[in-house]
């Protein structure tokens, strides 16, 4: 059927409108000729040809109209899908940027917290305390001393094991 449609669509649209018009006019002419005795002889062939033209005209006009509607719908859907693709891609970019940005913020936050429990070297302490007031400097140095003391005490292995057990992946959980 598509091949027939394709072949018919090679002819210009006006041709089929002409065929349809010829069919209608021919039937009218045949009807008029019926009332004229001398020429009524030509009525039958004119009538037959007109009916065939009318049938073909109506058929092809309907076919082409159907095809046109299909193409219009296809074009409309393609436009909608292209718009969807663009929106989908831009949504992805937006979410991705947010994820990347927030991941960095979380990572920096963790590193900053870890810095607060690490004992800095003497040079670093000097650098940090150089602009501090006497009171603040003493408080900071006391904090560092506490951290130093804490770093010298080792934890019982049972605590470390408990932590490691909790951090381990549950059995049967495969990636």
């Amino acid at each position, binding site marked *: *059927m598509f091949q027939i449609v394709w072949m018919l669509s090679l002819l210009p649209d006006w041709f089929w409108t002409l065929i349809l018009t010829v069919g209608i006019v021919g039937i009218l002419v045949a009807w008029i000729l019926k009332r004229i005795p001398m020429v009524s002889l030509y009525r*039958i062939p004119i*009538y*037959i040809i007109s*009916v*065939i033209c*009318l*049938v073909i005209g*109506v*058929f092809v006009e*309907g*076919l082409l109209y*159907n095809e046109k509607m*299909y193409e219009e*719908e*296809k074009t409309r*859907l*393609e436009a*909608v*899908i292209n718009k*969807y*693709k663009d*929106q*989908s*891609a831009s*949504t*992805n970019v937006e*979410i*991705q940027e*947010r*994820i*990347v940005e*927030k*991941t960095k913020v*979380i*990572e920096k*936050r*963790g590193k900053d*917290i*870890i810095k607060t*429990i*690490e*004992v800095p070297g003497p040079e670093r302490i000097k650098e940090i305390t150089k602009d501090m007031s006497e009171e603040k400097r003493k408080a900071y140095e006391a904090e560092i001393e506490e*951290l130093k003391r*804490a*770093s*010298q*005490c*080792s*934890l019982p292995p049972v*605590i*470390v094991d408990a*932590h*490691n057990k909790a*951090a*381990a*992946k549950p059995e049967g959980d495969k*990636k």
Partner: protein
Amino acid sequence: MRTLLILCLALVISSCGLLKPKIITLKPPFPEPIKELTEPCPDLKKIEGDKVAVQDLLRAVVENYTLYYQCSLKNDGWNDWYKRQKELYDQVK
């Protein structure tokens, strides 16, 4: 003659009936997932070594919290991605 006309009209009507409407099979593609979201969450950090200080423990805990929040972010990202992509997909008509 009238019979011929009726037959021809019947032919036209039946021919039109033979023309099944074409089904438009265009459908929107499934959206591509975001690369960062498809990466699996890493394993939590464990403490290694014989002499473990409080700082070492706390460092591991903080690192694990960081991993949790990063993984939680991915989970939220997936939910957000699904919700927004579904909204867009449902609009395609």
